[in-house]
Every structure is written in structure tokens, then in C-alpha cells.
């Protein structure tokens, strides 16, 4: 099972990996509960993306959110990245890969990771959800 997502924009062979501590640190920095931050009601603003990148790529040497903001601007200016959505998607995938949204979301996003056993588990979850509540 993967726990990280490859990201070559800020260095060759890097992978975004969001640990439990990463989320706690982001929550602390942003002064907002992490559940709210990642609900996408805030439409994943650039500040949050930069914070997530700073934490997710910490293992390659720490750079703060502003550093990532500048790099993203450079990438956009040089045309290496078409739009900020490319990086947003990468970060969203890294969050799902860390299983923040649970196993089900993980398998929906990375179906290639599913084994036969996992497929049965997914089917059971689906059935459980669709089962009448008063039965």
C-alpha cells in the first residue's frame, strides 16, 4: 500500500508523505481544526497547499510555506505547471494516500492497490451503506 505520492516539482524523486504529526503541526499553524481545513469548503487555498507541501516534503529538508509559494509561482511562470490545480490534485492525493479520509476513500482513489480481499471488503461496505436502516 502506498503512503506517499511522487512529486518531482521541487526536486527529483521526491514524495509527499503526510504523517500524523504533519496534520497536528498544520492544525497548530493554521489555528483551525484539521477536519475543517481539509473539508474542501475552503476550496484548498494556496496557503494551505503550501503548508501541506512544507510538511509533506519535510523529509527532504524543511522549507517554509512561503518558500513553496515562491517555487509554485516560478513553476507557473516557467510553464512547467499549467495551473495550480495540478499541485492541488497532487496534494489531495497525498492526503488520501495517508488514509486521512479512511480506507474506502483510499481504494476509490487508488483502485489499482486493491486486492481481491479488499474488493470484497469494499463490496461489504457498499452493502452496509445501502442496507435499510431499520432492518
Amino acid at each position: 500500500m502506498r503512503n506517499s505520492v511522487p512529486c518531482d516539482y521541487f526536486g527529483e524523486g521526491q514524495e509527499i508523505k503526510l504523517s500524523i504529526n504533519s496534520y497536528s503541526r498544520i492544525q497548530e499553524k493554521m489555528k483551525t481544526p484539521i477536519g475543517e481545513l481539509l473539508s474542501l469548503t475552503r476550496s484548498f487555498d494556496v496557503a494551505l497547499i503550501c503548508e501541506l507541501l512544507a510538511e509533506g516534503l519535510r523529509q527532504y529538508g524543511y522549507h517554509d510555506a512561503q518558500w513553496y509559494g515562491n517555487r509554485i509561482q516560478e513553476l507557473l511562470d516557467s510553464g512547467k505547471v499549467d495551473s495550480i490545480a495540478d499541485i492541488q490534485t497532487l496534494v489531495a492525493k497525498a492526503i488520501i494516500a495517508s488514509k486521512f479520509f479512511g480506507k474506502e476513500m483510499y481504494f476509490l482513489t487508488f483502485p489499482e492497490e486493491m486486492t481481491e480481499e479488499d474488493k470484497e471488503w469494499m463490496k461489504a461496505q457498499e452493502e452496509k451503506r445501502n442496507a435499510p436502516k431499520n432492518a
Partner: protein
Amino acid sequence: MDEGAGGKEECAKKRVTGQKKAPVWNDYVRFAERMAYGVLHLLPEQFEKLTIGELEQLIDGWEERRKLRLREQFTMVANLMNIHLKQGSQVSVKRLLEQVLPPDEDVVEFKRKRAEFENELTPAQRERVKKYVSDNS
């Protein structure tokens, strides 16, 4: 680990006033730490590097290991006991396991906390994430 955004009092206040959802994340992290340090015997620097998925895999692995160890021990215990018991009233490994293997309370509590946190992310929210990823990939 600190209390995160707002701290303990703030959480309690939010729960009482109902203005915002209380940050269940902090509860989850507290249990995750308890599992990591108490049950898995991890060091803080090892715990810091773990993702939610990795921690849960480690806990599943620990449960498997516990079952295996108990099975080995109870095989020996059952053999020793059965020497002294009449046929028909002999104990089986399965029966011994049933007495010990309602799963570890800490693990049950940890999983409950995890489910609680996951439930805080509403179905609509999940749908939004799913749509967001599929639209952008």
C-alpha cells in the same frame, strides 16, 4: 503532543456552544500516541514519521502477532491440562482463546476514535473530495 488549535478548553467550549465541530482530531492523536508508545513500543521519532495508514497497519500486525503468540501458549496449556482431564471435559485451544480474545480494549477504543473522526467527515464532504480528485486527474 499539544492540544492543537484552541486547546482543551476551547474544544469543550465548542462542544457546549455547538458553534463549530469540536476537533476530534486531537482525541484521535492522543489515542494514536497511546497505542504507539504503550502497545507498539515506538519511539517518538518513529511515531512522528508514521502516516495514519501505517500506524493502523502496525496495530493490525500487532493484533495478529498477539493472536499467534496466544495460540502457541494455549496449545501448550491445553496439552498440559488435558493430561489431567477426562475425555469429554478436555479443554481446546479455541475455548481458551475465546476467553482471552475479545480484542484488547485499547485497540477497540482506538478504532472507535478513528471511526468517530472519520464520521466527522460527512458523506457530502467525501463526495466532494472524490469529485475533486476525479475532476483533476
